[in-house]
């Protein structure tokens, strides 16, 4: 059979960009499909636009939000300047049981969420890959840290991660560019916290922002981050890592990539005679035209739940519940981080200290629970993200005051404030699952997802502990007016770290993928986005998406060359 492409990559974001780069650089004709609209790097509509040139000052009408963007408008990065990067929820509905919210935040353009991500980049640790085996929740990862470590090295050199070496077993160091700097009150907090709690460290947030761009990065047109903190609008300087700024240009320059926007993948075509995936069925988002495209290998990188939706919708006689799903685990073990627990307060002094620039990261407190400080209240643990700063005019309308004194007070930065909020590991549970809706379809006629996911007692206890320990930490550092914070309304999904619905594992009877992100049953089908995760750890997952994708692409390339695939 003559295939149209060597490889089809579904999705062009964090994972898809890496798959495209790796295959194209290895000489394979690669088709990248994305449901979203076209978006060229450097052609970002709102980038560098002065505030007085924003038609609506960054605001979006609440009625419009409720009607069309009811879920994505909950994302911190959703505003007038970024609206075009977010999906219209009304076009792509999904269901949840009543009183069981799941906030599914989805992108709308080529580049996916790599355009609007918060860029926090942390490796998983050896203990993260052993956690399931140790406490029995979930299935054992079929890989260990040492399997992935060289691939972390590989992607970090290309992507560019700033951070400090800390030699922490629970948070392995990356190949770093120099870290961003702490402010004086943050340095004081670090000293006092680390003196008080021997197992707690306060470090600079590790972030995919160029502080010392390499020759390779500059060749792609990327430059040093200029602390504009307008990343979510798109950065034509490539100061932060996105597929549009980095991996897709690298793929494009090989001449081997075909990138199609507005290409909605309906399902994967399965050839029952060979047992392989033949290609994909595609709907043109603009015209509705339906086509099929064939390739020797399919890489699913459409994001955890979108990939799973396509897999579930790829039904045949052999696989009535979705391609490659004899195990029945497809759609199950959905996880997101638990958040909503933390603390905030006011720092006295440092009145004469200010800063220049808008630092694109904050502080990080790596996990200490059940590492240096055990607890019997819950399994696993959490890290904190936060930092100190001085507010400006945008908060002033909340306080009383009018007139000259009020206006003059706004002209000066406010006093220092500080906050930390936890990101905790959610346990993999079978009952946290997605399936296809029996009644609801999207605007292309594709069955919507039904998402049934909730935090368990373990996560809720963890959230309370986050608030307790964040309060302790701030008090130990001498912070004033410390307020313990617990947001009971925070539900899964809103952290936008969803993973786990086509998990890797050692046993084909209880997992969907093997240790190379390869379907146990359909050997030319790979899933390298978050769907593949067997556990979520407490670190932000994108760096691990990148490492797994590069590793799987290398594995698949070798097998393509060998004629096995």
């Amino acid at each position: 059979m003559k295939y149209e492409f060597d490889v089809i990559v579904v999705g062009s974001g964090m994972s898809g960009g890496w798959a495209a780069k790796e295959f194209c650089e290895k000489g394979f004709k690669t088709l990248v499909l994305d449901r979203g609209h076209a978006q060229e790097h450097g052609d970002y509509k709102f980038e560098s636009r002065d505030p007085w040139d924003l038609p609506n000052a960054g605001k979006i009408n609440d009625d419009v939000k409720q009607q069309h963007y009811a879920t994505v408008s909950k994302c911190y990065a959703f505003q007038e300047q970024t609206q075009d990067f977010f999906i219209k929820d009304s076009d792509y509905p999904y269901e949840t049981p009543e009183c069981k919210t799941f906030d599914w935040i989805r992108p709308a353009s080529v580049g996916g969420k790599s355009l609007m991500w918060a860029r926090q980049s942390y490796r998983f640790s050896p203990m993260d890959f052993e956690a399931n085996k140790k406490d029995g929740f979930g299935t054992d990862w079929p890989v260990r840290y040492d399997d992935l470590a060289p691939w972390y090295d590989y992607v970090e050199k290309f992507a560019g991660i700033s951070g400090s070496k800390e030699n922490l077993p629970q948070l392995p160091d990356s190949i770093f560019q120099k870290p961003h700097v702490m402010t004086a009150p943050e340095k004081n907090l670090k000293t006092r916290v680390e003196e008080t709690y021997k197992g707690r460290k306060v470090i600079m947030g590790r972030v995919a922002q160029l502080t010392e761009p390499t020759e390779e990065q500059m060749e792609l047109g990327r430059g040093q981050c200029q602390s504009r903190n307008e990343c979510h609008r798109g950065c034509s300087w490539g100061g932060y890592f996105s597929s549009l700024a980095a991996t897709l240009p690298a793929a494009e320059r090989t001449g081997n990539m075909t990138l199609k926007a507005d290409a909605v993948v309906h399902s994967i075509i399965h050839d029952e005679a060979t047992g392989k995936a033949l290609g994909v069925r595609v709907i043109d988002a603009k015209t509705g035209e339906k086509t099929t495209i064939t390739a020797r290998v399919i890489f699913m990188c459409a994001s955890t739940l979108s990939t799973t939706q396509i897999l579930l919708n790829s039904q045949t006689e052999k696989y009535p519940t979705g391609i490659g799903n004899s195990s029945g685990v497809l759609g199950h073990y959905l996880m997101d981080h638990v958040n909503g627990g933390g603390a905030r307060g006011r720092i006295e002094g440092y009145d004469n200290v200010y800063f220049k620039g808008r630092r694109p990261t904050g502080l990080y407190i790596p996990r200490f629970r059940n590492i240096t400080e055990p607890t019997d209240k819950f399994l696993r643990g959490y890290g904190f993200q936060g930092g100190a700063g001085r507010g400006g005019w945008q908060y002033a309308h909340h306080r009383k005051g009018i007139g000259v004194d009020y206006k003059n007070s706004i002209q000066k930065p406010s006093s220092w404030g500080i906050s930390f909020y936890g990101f905790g590991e959610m346990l993999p549970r079978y009952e946290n699952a997605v399936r296809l809706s029996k009644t609801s379809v999207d605007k292309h006629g594709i069955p919507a997802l039904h998402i049934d996911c909730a935090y368990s007692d373990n996560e809720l206890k963890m959230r309370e502990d986050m608030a307790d320990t964040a309060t302790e930490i701030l008090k130990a550092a001498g912070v004033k007016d410390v307020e313990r914070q617990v947001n009971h309304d925070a539900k899964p999904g809103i952290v936008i770290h969803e993973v786990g619905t086509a998990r890797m594992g050692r046993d084909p009877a209880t997992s969907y993928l093997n240790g190379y992100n390869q379907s146990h049953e359909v050997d030319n089908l790979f899933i390298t986005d978050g769907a593949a995760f067997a556990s979520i750890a407490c670190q932000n997952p994108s760096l691990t998406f990148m490492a797994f994708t590069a590793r799987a692409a290398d594995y698949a390339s070798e097998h393509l060359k060998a004629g096995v695939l």
Partner: protein
Amino acid sequence: MTNLNKPSRRTVITGITALMGGLALSDTALAALDTAYSNGDHLNRSFDRDQMKTIAVFMDAILPETETPSATGVGADKFFVHAYQIIFSAKQRKIIMEFLDHMKNDHTEFLSASHSDQIKLVKHVDDNMLNSGNTYQAYRLLKEFTLIGFYRSEVGATEELDYDPVPGPFHEVPLKPSSKATASVIFT
């Protein structure tokens, strides 16, 4: 439809006892306004001349002229009209229009009052701005958009504050007496 069990909006308004020379909105009066309801005529009209003047008085009371122009001096009032038409939800439009209707119909002295009396009234509302109720919600919205209109204007950003679109790598600097707060906000 008329709800006979509720006082009409007009009944409520005419029952208001104003303080401070008939200008101030007393807590009782404001609370009474909050319980009134509208017949919906606010939804399809914009502000008339007196309402625009009222907006301007409130805005310039909040952010008066200093070394830089006042809120209306940079066009914050015109931005508010745009916000009313484009940015506000139907609910927000309703509470704003009710607030301005009340000021127009029941505090007819407001626009002709002395500047100091106007300031007194605005300060009275501001002092109670954290109270619940539509009136205070309307005021909070007006105040928020006064600040947005001013500090997101070119003058507000570049003259009143420190606007630096390309600051370069983040670093600490001393805050001098002449230093100004940054005009930029995160995620904009």
